[in-house]
């Protein structure tokens, strides 16, 4: 199966790889995994007082599509409010990256990761 150019680009030059301090109050961490393939994804957001995501980082051990999906979503969420970030759909990611049907679940992982990160942030702040 051939990967699209956008996938290859994000895969070869992933944006925002790395970590924030998990315990930091302004950070939300999402950890998700897909048992079927055994891939794991960590996605973190750094949120300012206004509820805007200032920065995002990820670490993914998985296939090219999963890496590309997490790279893309960290780009997208920057500057968005946490609620906007939470409403990103995997179909948008899949469309942008032109993922074939068998790779759709990899974008689902990214959607679930951002949701988990926002939830973690909200839990921390009693929201």
């Amino acid at each position, binding site marked *: 199966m051939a990967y699209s150019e956008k996938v290859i680009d994000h895969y070869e030059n992933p944006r925002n790889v790395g970590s924030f301090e998990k315990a930091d109050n302004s950070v939300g961490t999402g*950890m998700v*995994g897909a048992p079927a393939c055994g891939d794991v994804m960590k996605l973190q957001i750094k949120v300012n007082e206004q509820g805007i995501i200032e920065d995002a980082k990820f670490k993914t051990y998985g296939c090219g599509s999963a890496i590309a999906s997490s790279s893309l979503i960290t780009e997208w969420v920057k500057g968005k409010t946490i609620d906007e970030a939470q409403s990103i759909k995997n179909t948008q990611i899949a469309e942008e990256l032109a993922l074939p049907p068998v790779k759709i679940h990899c974008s689902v992982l990214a959607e679930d990761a951002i949701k988990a990160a926002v939830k973690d942030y909200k839990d921390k702040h009693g929201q």
Partner: protein
Amino acid sequence: MTKAQQNYFEIFGLEPNFSIDVPKLSSKLRALLNSVHPDRFASSGSQQQMLSMQKTTQLNDAFAVLKNPVKRAQYLLHLKTGIDTSKEHTVNDPEFLMQQLELREELEDISASSDISQLNQFADKISELEEVQEQQMAELFLQKPLDTDELQKAIYKLQFLHKTLSDIEQAEDKLLS
């Protein structure tokens, strides 16, 4: 046709349990394959030969599932409860996943350093973790009634450990080539 409905355990004359003696299973497989081998029916009609081929396939399918702890657990859970854990889904279990992520990071560092003895040590560590997980799985399957939530958790844990093991194998291949 007879016994088309036999489950994979019955095919090998086993009780449906998670604990399995895999070496024993593979000698059983050889014996069974031998007894249905198409050559034995060379002089019989084509119907017999067809049947023997079907049996051969069935035996190999059953063996492939039973020898693999993840597939065996999934099959057994499905057999006993109808729950299908083979579908794509996401799990959200931060503590366990963080541990998995750290293991992958460790593996990444070891691969980068090309230290084969370190890689072997790491492989032993993961195998041990997997053994513990299999042990727990066996116990869970003996409980009555079955705790299906815990079983599904145990299955995905085994899946992630398995993935790490196969990553280790890949890293070994790379180092040795």
